[in-house]
Protein backbone atom coordinates (compact mmCIF):
# COMPACT_ATOMS: atom_id res chain seq x y z
CA UNK A 1 0.00 0.00 0.00
CA UNK A 2 1.25 3.45 -0.83
CA UNK A 3 2.18 5.68 2.04
CA UNK A 4 0.54 9.04 2.52
CA UNK A 5 3.03 11.85 2.10
CA UNK A 6 1.98 13.23 5.49
CA UNK A 7 3.40 10.20 7.28
CA UNK A 8 6.94 10.97 6.20
CA UNK A 9 7.06 14.60 5.23
CA UNK A 10 10.84 14.98 5.36
CA UNK A 11 11.47 11.87 3.29
CA UNK A 12 8.80 12.90 0.80
CA UNK A 13 10.31 16.35 0.41
CA UNK A 14 13.80 14.95 -0.05
CA UNK A 15 12.65 12.43 -2.65
CA UNK A 16 10.16 14.57 -4.54
CA UNK A 17 11.91 17.92 -4.64
CA UNK A 18 14.78 17.22 -7.08
CA UNK A 19 12.79 15.62 -9.92
CA UNK A 20 9.79 17.92 -9.54
CA UNK A 21 11.92 21.06 -9.44
CA UNK A 22 13.96 19.91 -12.42
CA UNK A 23 10.82 19.22 -14.40
CA UNK A 24 9.43 22.60 -13.49
CA UNK A 25 12.58 24.59 -14.19
CA UNK A 26 13.99 22.86 -17.23
CA UNK A 27 10.90 21.51 -18.90
CA UNK A 28 7.71 23.32 -17.96
CA UNK A 29 9.20 26.81 -17.95
CA UNK A 30 10.82 26.44 -21.42
CA UNK A 31 7.55 25.09 -22.80
CA UNK A 32 5.61 27.89 -21.11
CA UNK A 33 7.98 30.47 -22.58
CA UNK A 34 7.42 29.07 -26.05
CA UNK A 35 3.69 29.19 -25.40
CA UNK A 36 3.99 32.86 -24.45
CA UNK A 37 5.93 33.50 -27.67
CA UNK A 38 3.04 32.18 -29.74
CA UNK A 39 1.19 35.38 -28.74
CA UNK A 40 4.15 37.63 -29.47
CA UNK A 41 5.08 39.92 -32.31
CA UNK A 42 8.42 40.72 -33.85
CA UNK A 43 9.07 44.43 -33.32
CA UNK A 44 12.81 44.49 -33.96
CA UNK A 45 15.51 42.09 -35.08
CA UNK A 46 15.75 40.58 -31.61
CA UNK A 47 12.92 42.20 -29.65
CA UNK A 48 9.62 40.49 -29.32
CA UNK A 49 6.54 42.12 -27.83
CA UNK A 50 4.00 39.97 -26.09
CA UNK A 51 0.92 41.61 -27.47
CA UNK A 52 -1.49 38.73 -27.04
CA UNK A 53 -2.08 38.58 -30.77
CA UNK A 54 -3.51 35.55 -32.50
CA UNK A 55 -1.86 36.55 -35.79
CA UNK A 56 0.72 33.76 -35.55
CA UNK A 57 -1.95 31.10 -35.27
CA UNK A 58 -3.93 32.75 -38.07
CA UNK A 59 -0.85 32.66 -40.28
CA UNK A 60 -0.25 29.02 -39.41
CA UNK A 61 -3.73 28.25 -40.71
CA UNK A 62 -3.01 29.77 -44.12
CA UNK A 63 -3.30 27.26 -46.99
CA UNK A 64 0.49 27.02 -47.42
CA UNK A 65 1.14 25.92 -43.84
CA UNK A 66 -2.10 23.99 -43.55
CA UNK A 67 -0.91 22.09 -46.62
CA UNK A 68 2.39 21.26 -44.90
CA UNK A 69 0.52 20.07 -41.80
CA UNK A 70 -1.71 17.96 -44.03
CA UNK A 71 1.27 16.56 -45.86
CA UNK A 72 3.07 15.72 -42.60
CA UNK A 73 -0.01 13.87 -41.38
CA UNK A 74 -0.30 11.96 -44.67
CA UNK A 75 3.41 11.06 -44.71
CA UNK A 76 3.36 9.99 -41.05
CA UNK A 77 0.12 8.06 -41.64
CA UNK A 78 1.55 6.27 -44.67
CA UNK A 79 4.69 5.45 -42.70
CA UNK A 80 2.57 4.02 -39.90
CA UNK A 81 0.50 1.90 -42.28
CA UNK A 82 3.61 0.54 -44.01
CA UNK A 83 5.24 -0.20 -40.66
CA UNK A 84 2.09 -2.04 -39.61
CA UNK A 85 1.98 -4.08 -42.84
CA UNK A 86 5.65 -5.06 -42.52
CA UNK A 87 5.73 -5.20 -38.74
CA UNK A 88 2.69 -7.37 -38.07
CA UNK A 89 3.90 -10.55 -39.83
CA UNK A 90 7.36 -10.04 -38.35
CA UNK A 91 5.95 -9.62 -34.84
CA UNK A 92 3.74 -12.67 -35.36
CA UNK A 93 6.69 -14.76 -36.49
CA UNK A 94 8.78 -13.64 -33.51
CA UNK A 95 5.99 -14.24 -31.01
CA UNK A 96 5.63 -17.84 -32.19
CA UNK A 97 9.32 -18.61 -32.61
CA UNK A 98 11.25 -20.89 -30.27
CA UNK A 99 12.38 -19.08 -27.10
CA UNK A 100 16.02 -18.89 -28.10
CA UNK A 101 15.26 -17.72 -31.61
CA UNK A 102 12.84 -15.19 -30.16
CA UNK A 103 15.47 -13.57 -27.98
CA UNK A 104 17.88 -13.27 -30.89
CA UNK A 105 15.28 -11.89 -33.25
CA UNK A 106 14.19 -9.31 -30.69
CA UNK A 107 17.77 -8.25 -30.21
CA UNK A 108 18.26 -7.99 -33.98
CA UNK A 109 15.14 -5.86 -34.34
CA UNK A 110 16.22 -3.60 -31.50
CA UNK A 111 19.89 -3.19 -32.26
CA UNK A 112 19.42 -0.71 -35.14
CA UNK A 113 17.72 1.79 -32.94
CA UNK A 114 20.53 1.79 -30.51
CA UNK A 115 22.59 3.15 -33.36
CA UNK A 116 22.44 6.82 -34.09
CA UNK A 117 19.44 8.06 -36.05
CA UNK A 118 21.62 10.36 -38.13
CA UNK A 119 23.95 7.53 -39.07
CA UNK A 120 21.07 5.26 -40.03
CA UNK A 121 19.60 7.93 -42.26
CA UNK A 122 23.01 8.56 -43.79
CA UNK A 123 23.46 4.82 -44.39
CA UNK A 124 20.21 4.78 -46.31
CA UNK A 125 21.50 7.40 -48.74
CA UNK A 126 24.20 5.03 -50.02
CA UNK A 127 21.58 2.37 -50.67
CA UNK A 128 18.96 4.54 -52.33
CA UNK A 129 20.96 6.87 -54.57
CA UNK A 130 21.14 6.42 -58.32
CA UNK A 131 24.39 4.51 -58.01
CA UNK A 132 23.26 2.61 -54.95
CA UNK A 133 22.36 -0.98 -54.31
CA UNK A 134 18.67 -0.78 -55.03
CA UNK A 135 19.38 0.59 -58.47
CA UNK A 136 22.22 -1.89 -59.04
CA UNK A 137 19.90 -4.78 -58.22
CA UNK A 138 17.13 -3.42 -60.40
CA UNK A 139 19.57 -2.85 -63.27
CA UNK A 140 20.78 -6.42 -62.99
CA UNK A 141 17.19 -7.71 -63.06
CA UNK A 142 16.38 -5.39 -65.96
CA UNK A 143 19.37 -6.53 -68.01
CA UNK A 144 18.59 -10.17 -67.32
CA UNK A 145 14.96 -9.67 -68.23
CA UNK A 146 16.10 -7.89 -71.36
CA UNK A 147 18.42 -10.78 -72.23
CA UNK A 148 15.59 -13.22 -71.62
CA UNK A 149 13.32 -11.26 -73.94
CA UNK A 150 15.88 -11.44 -76.74
CA UNK A 151 16.25 -15.13 -76.04
CA UNK A 152 12.57 -15.79 -76.65
CA UNK A 153 12.57 -13.60 -79.73
CA UNK A 154 11.14 -10.36 -78.39
CA UNK A 155 12.68 -6.90 -78.63
CA UNK A 156 15.11 -6.10 -75.76
CA UNK A 157 13.99 -3.65 -73.10
CA UNK A 158 16.55 -0.98 -73.86
CA UNK A 159 18.85 0.91 -71.52
CA UNK A 160 18.10 0.80 -67.81
CA UNK A 161 17.05 4.16 -66.45
CA UNK A 162 18.06 4.43 -62.80
CA UNK A 163 15.14 5.19 -60.50
CA UNK A 164 15.36 8.44 -58.58
CA UNK A 165 14.82 7.15 -55.07
CA UNK A 166 16.46 9.99 -53.20
CA UNK A 167 15.47 13.58 -52.52
CA UNK A 168 11.75 13.08 -53.00
CA UNK A 169 8.70 12.09 -50.98
CA UNK A 170 9.22 8.37 -51.58
CA UNK A 171 12.65 8.62 -49.98
CA UNK A 172 11.16 10.34 -46.94
CA UNK A 173 8.57 7.58 -46.49
CA UNK A 174 11.19 4.83 -46.98
CA UNK A 175 13.46 6.59 -44.50
CA UNK A 176 10.74 7.00 -41.91
CA UNK A 177 9.70 3.35 -42.23
CA UNK A 178 13.33 2.32 -41.89
CA UNK A 179 13.78 4.36 -38.74
CA UNK A 180 10.45 3.58 -37.06
CA UNK A 181 9.94 -0.09 -37.88
CA UNK A 182 11.29 -1.29 -34.50
CA UNK A 183 8.84 1.05 -32.72
CA UNK A 184 6.01 -0.85 -34.39
CA UNK A 185 7.36 -4.40 -34.07
CA UNK A 186 8.03 -4.28 -30.32
CA UNK A 187 4.55 -3.34 -29.00
CA UNK A 188 2.94 -5.68 -31.55
CA UNK A 189 5.23 -8.44 -30.38
CA UNK A 190 4.41 -7.92 -26.73
CA UNK A 191 0.66 -7.91 -27.47
CA UNK A 192 0.87 -11.07 -29.62
CA UNK A 193 3.09 -12.79 -27.09
CA UNK A 194 0.58 -12.25 -24.26
CA UNK A 195 -2.37 -13.44 -26.32
CA UNK A 196 -4.29 -16.55 -25.32
CA UNK A 197 -3.20 -19.03 -27.96
CA UNK A 198 -5.96 -21.55 -27.28
CA UNK A 199 -8.36 -19.17 -29.01
CA UNK A 200 -6.28 -19.38 -32.18
CA UNK A 201 -6.08 -23.14 -31.89
CA UNK A 202 -9.85 -23.28 -31.46
CA UNK A 203 -10.35 -21.16 -34.55
CA UNK A 204 -8.02 -23.37 -36.60
CA UNK A 205 -9.64 -26.56 -35.26
CA UNK A 206 -13.04 -25.27 -36.23
CA UNK A 207 -11.90 -24.98 -39.82
CA UNK A 208 -10.95 -21.35 -40.26
CA UNK A 209 -7.83 -20.85 -42.36
CA UNK A 210 -4.74 -19.09 -41.07
CA UNK A 211 -5.54 -15.78 -42.72
CA UNK A 212 -9.08 -15.82 -41.45
CA UNK A 213 -7.93 -16.74 -37.94
CA UNK A 214 -5.48 -13.86 -37.98
CA UNK A 215 -8.06 -11.42 -39.26
CA UNK A 216 -10.99 -12.50 -37.08
CA UNK A 217 -9.24 -13.65 -33.90
CA UNK A 218 -5.70 -12.33 -33.62
CA UNK A 219 -6.25 -8.77 -34.84
CA UNK A 220 -9.16 -8.02 -32.46
CA UNK A 221 -7.30 -9.59 -29.54
CA UNK A 222 -4.13 -7.65 -30.29
CA UNK A 223 -6.03 -4.40 -30.91
CA UNK A 224 -4.58 -2.54 -27.87
CA UNK A 225 -1.06 -3.52 -28.93
CA UNK A 226 -1.75 -2.44 -32.49
CA UNK A 227 -3.13 0.87 -31.23
CA UNK A 228 -0.05 1.57 -29.12
CA UNK A 229 2.27 0.51 -31.94
CA UNK A 230 0.43 2.87 -34.28
CA UNK A 231 0.73 5.69 -31.75
CA UNK A 232 4.42 5.35 -31.02
CA UNK A 233 5.19 5.12 -34.72
CA UNK A 234 2.93 7.98 -35.74
CA UNK A 235 4.06 10.55 -33.14
CA UNK A 236 7.79 10.59 -33.89
CA UNK A 237 7.11 10.26 -37.63
CA UNK A 238 4.83 13.30 -37.50
CA UNK A 239 7.50 15.41 -35.84
CA UNK A 240 10.40 13.99 -37.86
CA UNK A 241 13.04 16.52 -38.74
CA UNK A 242 16.16 14.67 -39.83
CA UNK A 243 14.66 12.25 -42.36
CA UNK A 244 12.85 14.82 -44.53
CA UNK A 245 15.84 17.13 -44.16
CA UNK A 246 18.40 14.61 -45.40
CA UNK A 247 16.36 12.40 -47.73
CA UNK A 248 13.68 14.77 -48.95
CA UNK A 249 13.70 17.18 -51.83
CA UNK A 250 12.58 20.78 -51.93
CA UNK A 251 8.92 19.77 -51.88
CA UNK A 252 9.22 17.18 -49.09
CA UNK A 253 9.32 19.63 -46.21
CA UNK A 254 7.51 18.39 -43.16
CA UNK A 255 6.27 20.52 -40.31
CA UNK A 256 9.44 20.13 -38.23
CA UNK A 257 11.55 21.52 -41.09
CA UNK A 258 9.33 24.58 -41.30
CA UNK A 259 9.64 25.10 -37.54
CA UNK A 260 13.41 24.81 -37.74
CA UNK A 261 13.53 27.38 -40.52
CA UNK A 262 11.54 29.89 -38.46
CA UNK A 263 14.00 29.61 -35.60
CA UNK A 264 17.31 29.24 -37.39
CA UNK A 265 16.95 31.13 -40.66
CA UNK A 266 13.75 33.16 -40.99
CA UNK A 267 14.18 34.35 -37.40
CA UNK A 268 10.44 34.54 -36.82
CA UNK A 269 10.28 33.00 -33.37
CA UNK A 270 6.64 33.77 -32.55
CA UNK A 271 5.44 32.09 -35.73
CA UNK A 272 7.77 29.12 -35.19
CA UNK A 273 6.47 28.86 -31.63
CA UNK A 274 2.87 28.82 -32.87
CA UNK A 275 3.72 26.05 -35.35
CA UNK A 276 5.41 23.99 -32.60
CA UNK A 277 2.40 24.35 -30.38
CA UNK A 278 0.07 23.25 -33.17
CA UNK A 279 2.32 20.20 -33.69
CA UNK A 280 2.16 19.52 -29.97
CA UNK A 281 -1.64 19.76 -29.99
CA UNK A 282 -1.75 17.30 -32.91
CA UNK A 283 0.39 14.92 -30.87
CA UNK A 284 -1.96 15.22 -27.90
CA UNK A 285 -4.96 14.59 -30.14
CA UNK A 286 -3.27 11.41 -31.39
CA UNK A 287 -2.63 10.29 -27.79
CA UNK A 288 -6.21 11.04 -26.78
CA UNK A 289 -7.51 9.08 -29.78
CA UNK A 290 -5.36 6.12 -28.79
CA UNK A 291 -6.58 6.29 -25.17
CA UNK A 292 -10.14 6.38 -26.47
CA UNK A 293 -9.61 3.28 -28.66
CA UNK A 294 -7.91 1.52 -25.77
CA UNK A 295 -10.74 2.25 -23.36
CA UNK A 296 -13.31 1.10 -25.89
CA UNK A 297 -11.39 -2.12 -26.47
CA UNK A 298 -11.12 -2.75 -22.73
CA UNK A 299 -14.82 -2.22 -22.20
CA UNK A 300 -15.62 -4.66 -24.98
CA UNK A 301 -13.12 -7.24 -23.75
Amino acid at each position, binding site marked *: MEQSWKQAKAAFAAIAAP*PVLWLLLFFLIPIAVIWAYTFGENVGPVTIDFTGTFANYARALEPLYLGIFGKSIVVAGLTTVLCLIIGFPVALAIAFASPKMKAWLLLLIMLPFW*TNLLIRTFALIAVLREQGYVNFALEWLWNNASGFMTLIGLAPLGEYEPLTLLYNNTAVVIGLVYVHLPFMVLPLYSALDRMDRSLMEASLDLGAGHLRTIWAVVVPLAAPGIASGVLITF*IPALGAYLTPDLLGGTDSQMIANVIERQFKRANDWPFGAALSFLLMYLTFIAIAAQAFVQRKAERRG
Partner: protein
Amino acid sequence: MAKEALPVAAATLAAPPPLKREKPGPLEYMRRWPLQLMVGLTLVFLYLPLLTLMAFSFNDSRRNIVWQGFTFKYYEKALSNESLIEAFVNSLTIAFFCTIVSVVLGALAAVMLWRFRFPGKTAVEGTMALPIVVPEICLGVAMLVFFARVLPWPMGLPWPLNLGAITIAHISFAFPFVATVVRARLSSFNRELEEAAKDLGASEWRTFWDVLVPHMQPGLIAGALLAFTLSLDDFVITFFTSGPDTITFPVKVYSMLRFSVTPEVNAASTILIVVTVVLTAVGLHLQNQKPQENKA
Protein backbone atom coordinates in the same frame (compact mmCIF):
# COMPACT_ATOMS: atom_id res chain seq x y z
CA MET B 1 9.54 4.56 -25.57
CA ALA B 2 10.06 1.15 -27.08
CA LYS B 3 13.58 1.00 -25.74
CA GLU B 4 12.03 -0.12 -22.48
CA ALA B 5 11.38 -3.45 -24.12
CA LEU B 6 15.08 -4.22 -24.12
CA PRO B 7 15.12 -5.58 -20.55
CA VAL B 8 12.46 -8.05 -21.71
CA ALA B 9 14.74 -9.31 -24.45
CA ALA B 10 17.61 -9.39 -22.01
CA ALA B 11 15.63 -11.49 -19.58
CA THR B 12 14.64 -13.91 -22.32
CA LEU B 13 18.25 -14.15 -23.49
CA ALA B 14 19.40 -14.81 -19.96
CA ALA B 15 17.28 -17.84 -19.25
CA PRO B 16 16.15 -19.62 -22.38
CA PRO B 17 13.67 -22.33 -21.40
CA PRO B 18 14.52 -25.79 -22.77
CA LEU B 19 13.96 -26.12 -26.50
CA LYS B 20 11.03 -28.26 -27.51
CA ARG B 21 11.85 -30.75 -30.23
CA GLU B 22 8.44 -31.48 -31.64
CA LYS B 23 6.87 -31.48 -35.04
CA PRO B 24 6.00 -27.94 -36.14
CA GLY B 25 2.62 -27.19 -34.63
CA PRO B 26 -0.10 -25.21 -36.37
CA LEU B 27 0.95 -22.06 -34.53
CA GLU B 28 4.65 -22.20 -35.19
CA TYR B 29 4.54 -19.40 -37.66
CA MET B 30 8.29 -18.95 -37.59
CA ARG B 31 8.59 -22.28 -39.37
CA ARG B 32 6.46 -21.23 -42.31
CA TRP B 33 8.29 -19.95 -45.31
CA PRO B 34 6.20 -16.84 -46.07
CA LEU B 35 6.88 -15.51 -42.62
CA GLN B 36 10.48 -16.61 -42.69
CA LEU B 37 10.86 -14.70 -45.93
CA MET B 38 9.20 -11.66 -44.40
CA VAL B 39 11.46 -11.72 -41.34
CA GLY B 40 14.49 -12.28 -43.55
CA LEU B 41 13.63 -9.38 -45.84
CA THR B 42 12.98 -7.11 -42.88
CA LEU B 43 16.35 -7.92 -41.38
CA VAL B 44 18.02 -7.29 -44.73
CA PHE B 45 16.17 -3.98 -44.93
CA LEU B 46 17.31 -3.05 -41.42
CA TYR B 47 20.91 -4.19 -41.70
CA LEU B 48 21.97 -3.85 -45.33
CA PRO B 49 22.42 -0.06 -45.16
CA LEU B 50 24.35 -0.23 -41.89
CA LEU B 51 26.59 -3.09 -42.97
CA THR B 52 27.27 -1.36 -46.29
CA LEU B 53 28.22 1.79 -44.47
CA MET B 54 30.61 -0.11 -42.23
CA ALA B 55 32.12 -2.11 -45.09
CA PHE B 56 32.70 0.93 -47.25
CA SER B 57 34.52 2.76 -44.50
CA PHE B 58 37.39 0.38 -45.38
CA ASN B 59 37.08 0.99 -49.11
CA ASP B 60 40.08 2.54 -50.79
CA SER B 61 38.10 4.90 -53.00
CA ARG B 62 36.68 8.35 -52.51
CA ARG B 63 33.50 7.50 -54.33
CA ASN B 64 31.67 5.00 -52.21
CA ILE B 65 30.47 2.89 -55.08
CA VAL B 66 32.83 0.17 -56.18
CA TRP B 67 35.11 -1.80 -53.93
CA GLN B 68 38.70 -0.78 -54.62
CA GLY B 69 40.63 -2.48 -51.86
CA PHE B 70 41.03 -2.50 -48.13
CA THR B 71 42.36 0.51 -46.29
CA PHE B 72 42.44 2.08 -42.86
CA LYS B 73 43.22 5.50 -44.24
CA TYR B 74 39.81 6.97 -43.56
CA TYR B 75 40.08 5.90 -39.96
CA GLU B 76 43.44 7.62 -39.76
CA LYS B 77 41.88 10.67 -41.34
CA ALA B 78 38.89 10.62 -39.01
CA LEU B 79 41.08 10.10 -35.96
CA SER B 80 43.41 12.92 -36.92
CA ASN B 81 40.50 15.28 -37.57
CA GLU B 82 40.74 17.38 -34.43
CA SER B 83 37.31 18.94 -34.56
CA LEU B 84 35.76 15.50 -35.02
CA ILE B 85 37.61 14.15 -31.99
CA GLU B 86 36.63 17.20 -29.99
CA ALA B 87 33.00 16.67 -30.95
CA PHE B 88 33.23 13.02 -29.96
CA VAL B 89 34.75 13.88 -26.57
CA ASN B 90 32.02 16.49 -26.07
CA SER B 91 29.35 13.91 -26.84
CA LEU B 92 30.80 11.40 -24.39
CA THR B 93 31.16 14.06 -21.69
CA ILE B 94 27.57 15.21 -22.11
CA ALA B 95 26.34 11.61 -22.12
CA PHE B 96 28.34 10.88 -18.97
CA PHE B 97 26.94 13.78 -16.92
CA CYS B 98 23.48 13.30 -18.39
CA THR B 99 23.52 9.65 -17.31
CA ILE B 100 24.55 10.39 -13.73
CA VAL B 101 22.01 13.13 -13.14
CA SER B 102 19.24 11.30 -15.02
CA VAL B 103 19.70 8.14 -13.00
CA VAL B 104 19.51 10.06 -9.71
CA LEU B 105 16.50 12.14 -10.78
CA GLY B 106 14.80 9.21 -12.47
CA ALA B 107 15.25 6.94 -9.46
CA LEU B 108 13.92 9.62 -7.09
CA ALA B 109 10.94 10.25 -9.36
CA ALA B 110 10.21 6.52 -9.54
CA VAL B 111 10.42 6.12 -5.77
CA MET B 112 8.23 9.18 -5.25
CA LEU B 113 5.50 7.86 -7.53
CA TRP B 114 5.78 4.32 -6.23
CA ARG B 115 5.94 5.03 -2.52
CA PHE B 116 3.73 8.02 -1.83
CA ARG B 117 0.15 9.10 -2.11
CA PHE B 118 -0.06 12.85 -2.46
CA PRO B 119 -2.42 15.45 -3.83
CA GLY B 120 -1.86 16.13 -7.52
CA LYS B 121 -0.16 12.80 -8.09
CA THR B 122 -1.91 12.18 -11.41
CA ALA B 123 -0.86 15.61 -12.64
CA VAL B 124 2.76 14.99 -11.66
CA GLU B 125 2.67 11.58 -13.32
CA GLY B 126 1.23 13.04 -16.50
CA THR B 127 3.73 15.89 -16.60
CA MET B 128 6.56 13.43 -16.06
CA ALA B 129 5.45 11.56 -19.19
CA LEU B 130 5.37 14.73 -21.28
CA PRO B 131 9.07 14.90 -22.19
CA ILE B 132 8.70 11.39 -23.61
CA VAL B 133 5.81 12.25 -25.91
CA VAL B 134 6.41 15.87 -26.85
CA PRO B 135 7.97 15.99 -30.34
CA GLU B 136 11.72 16.50 -30.19
CA ILE B 137 11.55 19.56 -32.38
CA CYS B 138 9.22 21.30 -29.89
CA LEU B 139 11.51 20.53 -26.97
CA GLY B 140 14.45 21.65 -29.08
CA VAL B 141 13.03 25.07 -29.89
CA ALA B 142 11.81 25.47 -26.29
CA MET B 143 15.37 24.86 -25.08
CA LEU B 144 16.74 27.25 -27.70
CA VAL B 145 14.50 30.06 -26.50
CA PHE B 146 15.04 29.18 -22.84
CA PHE B 147 18.82 29.32 -23.07
CA ALA B 148 18.76 32.36 -25.32
CA ARG B 149 16.35 34.53 -23.37
CA VAL B 150 15.47 33.16 -19.92
CA LEU B 151 18.70 31.63 -18.67
CA PRO B 152 21.47 32.75 -21.02
CA TRP B 153 24.25 30.24 -20.69
CA PRO B 154 27.48 32.22 -20.35
CA MET B 155 29.75 32.02 -23.38
CA GLY B 156 33.36 30.96 -23.12
CA LEU B 157 33.12 28.92 -19.94
CA PRO B 158 35.91 26.39 -19.41
CA TRP B 159 35.25 22.82 -20.52
CA PRO B 160 33.08 20.96 -19.47
CA LEU B 161 30.95 23.81 -18.11
CA ASN B 162 30.40 25.16 -21.61
CA LEU B 163 28.43 21.99 -22.33
CA GLY B 164 26.01 22.78 -19.49
CA ALA B 165 23.08 23.93 -21.62
CA ILE B 166 23.16 20.82 -23.82
CA THR B 167 23.56 18.57 -20.79
CA ILE B 168 20.59 20.16 -19.02
CA ALA B 169 18.45 19.77 -22.15
CA HIS B 170 19.44 16.11 -22.43
CA ILE B 171 18.67 15.40 -18.77
CA SER B 172 15.20 16.90 -19.19
CA PHE B 173 14.19 14.34 -21.78
CA ALA B 174 16.28 11.42 -20.49
CA PHE B 175 15.29 11.22 -16.82
CA PRO B 176 11.58 10.47 -17.40
CA PHE B 177 12.70 7.41 -19.41
CA VAL B 178 14.86 6.31 -16.47
CA ALA B 179 11.93 6.88 -14.11
CA THR B 180 9.70 4.62 -16.23
CA VAL B 181 12.24 1.80 -16.27
CA VAL B 182 13.01 2.03 -12.54
CA ARG B 183 9.33 2.20 -11.65
CA ALA B 184 8.66 -0.98 -13.61
CA ARG B 185 11.38 -2.63 -11.55
CA LEU B 186 10.00 -1.27 -8.26
CA SER B 187 6.60 -2.81 -8.87
CA SER B 188 8.13 -6.19 -8.01
CA PHE B 189 9.42 -4.93 -4.65
CA ASN B 190 7.87 -6.37 -1.53
CA ARG B 191 7.01 -3.38 0.63
CA GLU B 192 7.17 -5.52 3.76
CA LEU B 193 10.94 -5.68 3.41
CA GLU B 194 11.10 -1.94 3.85
CA GLU B 195 8.83 -2.08 6.90
CA ALA B 196 10.91 -4.90 8.35
CA ALA B 197 14.08 -2.86 7.99
CA LYS B 198 12.45 0.08 9.73
CA ASP B 199 11.07 -2.13 12.50
CA LEU B 200 14.57 -3.42 13.08
CA GLY B 201 15.70 0.13 13.68
CA ALA B 202 17.10 1.20 10.33
CA SER B 203 16.73 4.86 9.58
CA GLU B 204 14.86 6.18 6.57
CA TRP B 205 18.13 6.79 4.75
CA ARG B 206 19.60 3.38 5.62
CA THR B 207 16.47 1.58 4.50
CA PHE B 208 16.56 3.45 1.24
CA TRP B 209 20.23 2.78 0.64
CA ASP B 210 20.48 -0.82 1.89
CA VAL B 211 17.09 -2.24 0.99
CA LEU B 212 15.49 -0.29 -1.82
CA VAL B 213 18.55 0.65 -3.90
CA PRO B 214 19.87 -2.93 -4.21
CA HIS B 215 16.46 -4.00 -5.43
CA MET B 216 16.34 -1.18 -7.96
CA GLN B 217 19.82 -1.94 -9.28
CA PRO B 218 18.91 -3.76 -12.52
CA GLY B 219 16.47 -0.97 -13.30
CA LEU B 220 19.12 1.63 -12.55
CA ILE B 221 21.60 -0.06 -14.89
CA ALA B 222 19.02 -0.36 -17.66
CA GLY B 223 18.03 3.26 -17.07
CA ALA B 224 21.63 4.43 -17.14
CA LEU B 225 22.22 2.62 -20.41
CA LEU B 226 19.08 4.17 -21.83
CA ALA B 227 20.03 7.68 -20.72
CA PHE B 228 23.53 7.28 -22.11
CA THR B 229 22.40 6.16 -25.56
CA LEU B 230 19.56 8.70 -25.69
CA SER B 231 22.04 11.45 -24.99
CA LEU B 232 24.70 10.12 -27.36
CA ASP B 233 22.11 9.71 -30.12
CA ASP B 234 20.31 12.97 -29.83
CA PHE B 235 20.59 15.25 -32.77
CA VAL B 236 17.54 17.50 -32.90
CA ILE B 237 17.58 18.92 -29.38
CA THR B 238 21.37 19.31 -29.44
CA PHE B 239 21.17 21.02 -32.82
CA PHE B 240 19.10 23.77 -31.19
CA THR B 241 21.15 24.13 -28.01
CA SER B 242 24.70 23.81 -29.33
CA GLY B 243 26.81 26.83 -30.14
CA PRO B 244 29.81 27.22 -32.44
CA ASP B 245 32.25 25.91 -29.82
CA THR B 246 29.99 23.24 -28.34
CA ILE B 247 29.62 20.84 -31.25
CA THR B 248 28.63 17.27 -30.49
CA PHE B 249 29.38 14.23 -32.59
CA PRO B 250 25.99 13.97 -34.36
CA VAL B 251 25.97 17.71 -35.06
CA LYS B 252 29.50 17.47 -36.47
CA VAL B 253 28.60 14.48 -38.65
CA TYR B 254 25.54 16.38 -39.84
CA SER B 255 27.62 19.34 -40.98
CA MET B 256 30.13 17.01 -42.63
CA LEU B 257 27.23 15.36 -44.46
CA ARG B 258 25.91 18.70 -45.61
CA PHE B 259 29.34 19.49 -46.95
CA SER B 260 30.04 16.21 -48.72
CA VAL B 261 29.50 12.49 -48.24
CA THR B 262 33.00 11.15 -47.70
CA PRO B 263 34.31 7.81 -46.49
CA GLU B 264 35.63 9.73 -43.49
CA VAL B 265 32.05 10.08 -42.31
CA ASN B 266 31.62 6.34 -42.82
CA ALA B 267 34.66 5.68 -40.65
CA ALA B 268 33.47 8.04 -37.91
CA SER B 269 29.99 6.50 -38.02
CA THR B 270 31.39 2.99 -37.82
CA ILE B 271 33.32 3.96 -34.69
CA LEU B 272 30.13 5.29 -33.11
CA ILE B 273 28.12 2.21 -34.10
CA VAL B 274 30.75 -0.07 -32.57
CA VAL B 275 30.89 2.03 -29.39
CA THR B 276 27.09 1.88 -29.03
CA VAL B 277 26.85 -1.84 -29.72
CA VAL B 278 29.64 -2.62 -27.27
CA LEU B 279 28.04 -0.44 -24.60
CA THR B 280 24.68 -2.11 -25.16
CA ALA B 281 26.26 -5.55 -24.92
CA VAL B 282 28.04 -4.60 -21.68
CA GLY B 283 24.84 -3.15 -20.29
CA LEU B 284 22.82 -6.24 -21.15
CA HIS B 285 25.51 -8.44 -19.68
CA LEU B 286 25.56 -6.49 -16.40
CA GLN B 287 21.79 -6.54 -16.27
CA ASN B 288 21.66 -10.29 -16.80
CA GLN B 289 24.28 -11.01 -14.22
CA LYS B 290 22.71 -9.30 -11.26
CA PRO B 291 19.61 -11.46 -10.75
CA GLN B 292 21.66 -14.61 -11.15
CA GLU B 293 24.13 -13.52 -8.49
CA ASN B 294 21.27 -12.79 -6.15
CA LYS B 295 19.86 -16.24 -6.63
CA ALA B 296 23.16 -18.02 -6.12
